[in-house]
């Protein structure tokens, strides 16, 4: 243990001396959050809208203004000919078109069903389906208002109005930011932790200091522990900075307990660093270590963790693979604590999985180093 401490204090001094790298490790993650947090946003605002109004009545204008007032749509203009519509869509000047048929107001007045056509540019399927959702919602609301007005008329038969009241938990405004920021936190922390430790051992191999250390009666485990401790402290601080920035910048709530959150972060980081160490024991140059570290942390954390794409909609084989991606478990824990205020009973399996990942990766790195040193 004394030897592990000797390695740790040496490593820490080295890091502290290298101010630039330290600053990068501490603050760049928070900066990434700022950058990507604003870019990564599935919410759609200001969809450019054109209107083909063949009715030109009070009711038709009411419908159009309900779209514009929603904030989701910006009115680009009114058009008359279908040819002009085509051109506007082709030139991407508009993403959505509402076509209101003539006789709209008249038919509404007699409660005859009318159809309003909503045309959406489908070149981006995600955006398109979101816009369809918005349009449905707005037209539904408009419908309800018309019904109510109709009912209010004297002599109308008292038909009970069935209102649908959508209620979405945890993220009532359905802000995709709230869903994405925890993923982003996991993503950034994972990459920094894996890369920083992956480089730390290879650097010693490249500079020849590893050879000198190997000559000492020092077994791999204290060496690995000593190597990990300082980076654990740094990436821990960095992860907390990222989370605090997310709270300030993106109004990420904190509904659960801090100790639980810190525990999850610590388990996750130890696992990530073990992965970095494992890479480090295999790679011979910093360049290779960096690339492998980046690839093995970036893609799985982004694609296979449930950060962006829900795991439940992946093919079953891919779902199995996600079980070895630590970010998967961390995300469950992070979202549970931060967004839902859940307690440990809700995600203890994920904490166990994180602990298993950390232990296995540490063990492998240690074994691998023992083989290389022997």
């Amino acid at each position: 243990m004394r030897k592990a401490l000797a390695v740790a204090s040496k490593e820490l001094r080295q890091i502290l001396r290298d101010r630039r790298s330290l600053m990068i490790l501490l603050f760049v993650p928070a900066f990434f959050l700022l950058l990507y947090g604003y870019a990564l946003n599935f919410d759609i605002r200001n969809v450019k809208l054109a209107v083909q109004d063949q009715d030109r009545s009070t009711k038709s204008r009411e419908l159009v203004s309900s779209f514009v007032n929603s904030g989701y749509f910006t009115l680009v203009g009114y058009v008359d000919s279908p040819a002009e519509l085509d051109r506007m869509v082709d030139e991407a000047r508009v993403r959505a078109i509402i076509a209101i048929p003539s006789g709209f107001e008249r038919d509404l007045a007699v409660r005859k069903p009318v159809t309003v056509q909503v045309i959406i540019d489908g070149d981006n399927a995600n955006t398109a389906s979101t816009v369809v959702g918005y349009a449905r919602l707005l037209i539904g609301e408009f419908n309800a208002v018309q019904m109510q007005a109709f009912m209010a008329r004297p002599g109308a038969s008292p038909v009970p109005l069935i209102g649908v009241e959508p209620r979405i938990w945890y993220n009532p405004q359905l802000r995709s930011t709230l869903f994405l920021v925890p993923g982003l936190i996991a993503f950034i922390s994972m990459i920094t932790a894996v890369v920083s430790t992956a480089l730390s051992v290879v650097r010693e191999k490249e500079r020849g200091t590893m050879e000198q250390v190997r000559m000492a009666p020092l077994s791999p485990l204290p060496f690995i522990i000593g190597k990990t401790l300082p980076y654990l402290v740094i990436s821990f601080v960095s992860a907390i900075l990222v989370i605090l920035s997310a709270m300030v910048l993106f109004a990420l709530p904190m509904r659960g307990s801090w100790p639980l959150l810190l525990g999850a972060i610590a388990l996750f980081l130890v696992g990530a660093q073990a992965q970095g160490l494992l890479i480090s024991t295999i790679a011979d140059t910093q360049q290779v270590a960096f690339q492998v570290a980046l690839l093995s942390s970036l893609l799985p954390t982004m694609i296979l963790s449930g950060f962006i794409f829900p795991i439940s909609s992946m093919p079953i084989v891919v779902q199995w693979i996600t079980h070895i991606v630590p970010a998967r478990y961390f995300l469950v824990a992070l979202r549970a604590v931060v967004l839902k205020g859940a307690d440990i009973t809700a995600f203890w399996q994920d904490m166990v999985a994180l602990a298993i990942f950390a232990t296995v990766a540490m063990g492998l790195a240690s074994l691998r180093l023992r083989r290389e040193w022997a």
Partner: protein
Amino acid sequence: MSDLAIDVRGLTRRFGAFVAVDDLSFSVKQGEIFGFLGANGAGKSTTIRMLCGLLKPTSGTAMVGGVDVSRDPEGVKRRIGYMSQKFSLYELLTVDQNIRFFGGIYGLSSDRLESRRKFVLEMAGLQGRETTLTRDLPGGWRQRLALGCAILHEPKIVFLDEPTGGVDPLSRRRFWDLIGELSRQGVTVLVTTHYLDEAEHCHRIAIIQAGKMAALGTTTELKQVFSTRPIIEIQASQPVQAMAILDRQPSVEKTSLFGTAVHAVLRDRDTDPKALSSMLSADGIEVTSIGAVAPSLEDVFLDVVERTGAAS
């Protein structure tokens, strides 16, 4: 335990089909300075790595400080000090921090570390430079610090793998003084080097060629190969042409260039250098000086390498 610090019997190491070290046997007495000479890739480093317990021998045995390196590599590591050509110190740490780190991983108690730290600083002449970054130290100082870090735990056997590479002559001299001092205290030193003038400091020398022992003995013993074959040194106006002419003479075994001078190894003691001189002059080469010289280690080394190279 005998007074042998290192005892190597039939040590062999293969890497696939390549035999890096081939059936090497030698022993080193306690307090001896033992030089390991050989061209690059001759197997010096592989041998040292096996003796340090870093690499398992394919066959053969090596006892270092009474411990079998194959059976107890960790026990070997506790008994030896090692310093390599790269002076593997942490450049971003200060002198003091480097000493403390190596003391830490060798498991020195804090009292012992303190006294050893003072000793190393004094030995390396680094008092007052404790807080200097290692990267800012001149090569010679770094080299002495590296040696100090390698002997912090007071090993009885020290391995030095090309310790003087890239260091100025004055620092090299001072370094060899330190090695002599260690030897007088009973520490066994096994050192590899490229500098043949340095090898003269060694009590005994082994010359390794293609993984095999090509010659072994004291410098005087090694130079005996020239007892019946005098070496003539010739300073001439066109050394390269002079060599070509000399090589055609039946009395000349071989020639080699030493700086601007030509060394010719004669087949026997009967040839008169004067005759060679007048022959060169007849071919239009101006001879400024010619005469017998004592063989240097470089002559020995070249001779051994050429003979064993020709044999294999």
